[in-house]
């Protein structure tokens, strides 16, 4: 005699066995006392479990859920910049500064004909009176001050 498994008896009591298998179990339970006792106990337990009914309180969870979702997403919308935007702004600022510096530098050189930095340096040393042929006006004037072995290196 092939006894149904305990799991099959559980599913049979629940009314969830495949029809063909359910008929076979039903036929077996009719002739097997041990299986009949287990099947009866399982059916009673299944029915007893059905006595525990739960009725959720009438409430609408959506307002509270929506408030939580708004709280989660609000900081991202409240002006805190996202990182791609920050990187883009930084890069744009650097490019703009470089462009402005380049334009100003070219304008200055076109006005005075000498490197602006060099002119400022010479003026600060009050050496313009020494004259000279080089861009900074120093090499000729300083020749008399530079030792002969260094002049070789300077050439």
């Amino acid at each position, binding site marked *: 005699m092939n006894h149904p498994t305990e799991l099959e008896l559980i599913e049979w009591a629940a009314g969830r066995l495949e029809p063909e298998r359910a008929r076979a179990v039903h036929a077996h339970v009719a002739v097997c006392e041990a299986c009949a006792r287990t099947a009866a106990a399982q059916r009673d*337990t299944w029915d007893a479990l059905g006595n525990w009914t739960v009725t*959720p*309180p009438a409430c609408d969870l*959506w307002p*509270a*859920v929506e408030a*939580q979702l708004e709280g989660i997403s609000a900081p991202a919308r409240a002006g805190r910049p996202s990182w791609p935007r920050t990187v883009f702004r930084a890069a744009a600022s650097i490019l703009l500064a470089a462009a402005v510096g380049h334009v100003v530098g070219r304008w200055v050189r076109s006005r005075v004909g000498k490197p602006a930095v060099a002119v400022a340096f010479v003026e600060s040393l009050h050496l313009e009176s020494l004259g000279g042929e080089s861009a900074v006006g120093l090499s000729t004037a300083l020749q008399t001050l530079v030792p002969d072995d260094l002049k070789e290196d300077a050439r």
Partner: protein
Amino acid sequence: MDTGPKSDAELMTAVAGGRMAAMGELVHRHQASVMAVAYRFVDRWDLAEDVAQDVFVRIHRAAADYRPEAKFTTWLYRIVVNLCLDVKRRESRRPVSMGEMPADPPADAPPDPIEARETAGRVRQAVGDLPDRQRTAVVLHRYDGLSHREIAEVTGWSESAVESLLVRGYAGLRDALADMNEIDRRETA
């Protein structure tokens, strides 16, 4: 043109597209069942409501990852069960004060005969006394109608593990409720 109510998968696609109204519709559609499932695990309506809210927040957060091929309710139940088990673990570590007894059924429930309420109380106690995994399998099987395979998908356990848990869980319940069933049998004989 009215095309009828949208499916859960369609609503989830809309939620992933940023439509909050679709999220609201999902909440209204499933909030009662989620709270009922959660209550059977955590045994308190206030905790069940907290769990339910967390469930829907997580669904919204994970909407972009939802695949329509997966059954929505299986995915939903998975989130509910995981959150309930977290709550149970947290509550078991917390000392319980005398004022924190499990909540009775809500006041607006229809009045039951005393005997029916006692039976329901005993059943609730018996289910609550089961080990966590057995209780999870039995609750999903008996009260939510899930198959062994669906329970396995929800919990991440193997099907054979689920079946073993059901056998042991129901065996425990038969023992716990045996005297009650015996009384019922004698009364109806």
